[in-house]
């Protein structure tokens, strides 16, 4: 590795791929951080409301799942971008 002439094209290629891998992971990680926290707030407050009206548990579960599904879309965007960075570059 040391004696050979330095192949700058290969190094540039490696930096590009490394940045793509790191970017995919950090993007998904930060998005997952916020999404997980947000979904936790939704489900936690649903739990509090369920304590107030336990007979309406079906309504509560349904509304909670709708709210969480909307939050989840952001994580799916990041997952799509991460997979694109992993396989489309």
């Amino acid at each position, binding site marked *: 590795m040391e004696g050979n002439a330095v192949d700058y094209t290969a190094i540039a290629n490696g930096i590009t791929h490394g940045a793509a891998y790191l970017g995919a992971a950090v993007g998904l990680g930060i998005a997952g951080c916020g999404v997980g926290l947000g979904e936790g707030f939704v*489900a936690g407050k649903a739990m509090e409301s369920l304590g107030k009206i336990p007979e309406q548990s079906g309504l509560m*579960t349904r509304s909670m799942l709708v709210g969480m599904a909307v939050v989840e879309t952001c994580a799916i965007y990041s997952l799509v971008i991460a997979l694109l960075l992993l396989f489309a570059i």
Partner: protein
Amino acid sequence: MIEFVNVSVFLGAALSCGVGGSAAGLAEGTIGMNAMQALGRQPKANAQLLRTLLIGVAVTETGGIFALVIGLLLLFGGLNSPDSAYDLARTVSFLAAGLAIGLGSMGSSFGSGYTAAESCAGVGRTPSHSNAVTSNMIVGQALTQTSTIFSLIISLLLLYLVPDMAENQSWGYQIAMSGAYLGAAMSIALGTIGVATGVGFVTGKAMRMIARFRENASTFLRQMFVGVAVVETCAIYSLVVAFLLLFK
């Protein structure tokens, strides 16, 4: 000359124990704080409160202990062979292993700390419900710890599965693989911080409600499992991407 592989190993061990330990300490302090507040309100419930406090603190400590184990393995595990001095990807993988468990155990510590803190507050409010609250608290804390287990798996794979590079590998390939290994760690570490804190928020609220209305405990538990399952999907995405990067 500087042995960069040692720099990576020492930095990885220090960050793993430092970051993981700080989160665990903060979370355990919150549990103790709530327990003391509850004791001031209900001094007669000291036996029940002590039991809930000790179990809660012990489970919250899990993340810190895993971080310590990875830190000790990095320092004394005999991992760095003499060949790895010129091996960039292997060098980076040690730092990545430390970061994965250090940052990855933060969320679990916060989450299970919140669960135990709410349980202590609930036991202080209604000491007669302490059995139901404490047994369900262990279930809730176990759910928050799944993220630590994911991080531990990735960390151990980074320590033991990453091969020494062949002598003829180009620097370009090594730089790309370094990015992949650091990325695998960052994906699972950052991804689980929010997820495990969110899971802990759900299970904590469930404990509060079980302490207040024990007769509806089964409804709360069902809702808790549904909520936790949806939150956990984000951690699964991170785990999948981490595995894809590791086996690139």
